């Protein structure tokens, strides 16, 4: 049997239907992408916060511990200090690592020998409490995911709090 050709109306209908399906699929894909970004945000934020806490932990654990007990030496500068919300950790070769929140840009920075390095964007709070008596350092970081458009979805806020025992 020979196949009859399509009429003009059938062709136009098919094209219109196809356009409809493709545009629906495209918008759905875009929406799915956005949904995926939003749903992955908490995990991403948690990873970032964990990474910053791991960096602080590493700075606390590494260093020289000998000079502090040297006989006849002047009293050593404390390895960890908190001044106006800035966390300072004295590392190897007397290098100072400074953790500081720039409230204007909401950027958490780590400065090594005067060179700043951006750690996190969208940080609302960076609270550091040093307890000399108990030799502990408490760090709280609150951040918002700025990769999500605030007009379309409420940015997820995440807080990480850690207590570090000072290792010396």
């Amino acid at each position, binding site marked *: 049997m020979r196949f009859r050709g399509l009429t003009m109306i059938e062709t136009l209908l098919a094209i219109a239907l196809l356009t409809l399906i493709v545009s629906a699929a495209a918008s759905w894909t875009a929406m*799915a992408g956005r949904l*995926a970004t939003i749903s992955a945000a908490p995990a991403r934020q948690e990873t970032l916060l*964990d990474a910053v806490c*791991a960096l602080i*932990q590493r700075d606390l654990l590494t260093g*020289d*511990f000998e000079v502090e007990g040297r006989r006849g030496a002047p009293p050593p500068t404390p390895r960890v200090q908190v001044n106006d919300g800035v966390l300072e950790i004295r590392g190897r070769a007397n290098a100072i690592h400074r953790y500081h929140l720039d409230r204007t840009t909401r950027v958490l920075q780590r400065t090594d020998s005067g060179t700043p390095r951006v750690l996190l964007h969208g940080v609302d709070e960076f609270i550091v409490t040093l307890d000399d*008596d108990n030799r502990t350092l408490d760090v709280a970081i609150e951040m918002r995911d700025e990769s999500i458009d605030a007009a379309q979805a409420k940015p997820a806020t995440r807080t990480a709090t850690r207590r570090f025992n000072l290792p010396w």
Partner: protein
Amino acid sequence: MVNLTRPDSARRGVALLIVLAVLMITLTATSIIMSAAANASASRRLAQADHIAIDLLAAAEEPIQWWLKNESDKVILPLPPTVLEPAVAVLDDSFTLAARLIDDDEASGESPVVQITITAFDQRGMVPMQLARSGSPLRLSLPTEVLQLLDAADLPPASGTLDVQLGLDLFSRAIDDYPDVAIFPSAVAGGANRRPFGAQDAARLPALGGLVATHNRGTPVRINICTAPMPLVEAACRLAGRGDIDQIVAARTAGKRPDVPQLFDRAQSGEAASSIPSIVTTTDCWSFRIDLTVNGLKQSWWSTYTRGRPPAPLPAPRPPTPTLGHPSQIRTRAITPRKDHDWTCVQRLAIDE
């Protein structure tokens, strides 16, 4: 034979389109949910592994202190010519951590597999860095690649003084230009994985940290002839005025301590100069490479311990939970090392490889 009339096929076509749309939406939603869950799970597992590794680092203090106290003075290494590093396996163990031992907020319900390897390196069994960077004959006992790295490194002016302690991290920038040498020495397998002493891994690069001492300063510097490799023993004995090293080789081959009083030690006989080493048979400074693997996440540390410090007061008891506004998420890491021993950690570095 089915008679497909026009209204039926249109209905079926519409039904197919609806099924297609529903399928697409369901599949996409499912994949998004699964991807988010997998991300969250991976993030949690990584954080958990990281926390466990830090806890294990604190726990490693105990076997290290035990080894330093009970075993370190007994170490006498054979002298195969292939061995250039004064390395001893302290601990090589793997085990499964019970899930109940993990903090509730971190638990993923799985029991993490943990591997811990601790290798000791005798600082007195290596060439002191200040001599290796000078014209000392001890320098000749080092491989060429290591010498090149040593000479190329731009160390801070006060390095090696009491104010700026030497450390292997000072070479992290220079190492990029020297692919044939490593900064930190590899771990030595122990326990069931132990290989005969001297059986070198062909792919093992000469490592600065296994050949050059960062914590062997003072006048005179000390060389432990019970652990130092053959080239260094020869060079040190020659410098110290002892030409015949047969006695040392024989003693070490037999696993016995060489008889030091019989050795003529110029460093202790009034001829001391900063470049002449003092020959010793025990060590008061060890470095440890600590490798911790938790569920595939690996952390490595380099810790140096010295003997002779007065015991420091014990750390204060653990404080109550802080209230920083989010007490439910507070995690406590017990990282305070014990200080009630006469061996003290004087330097700790993170190993990046």
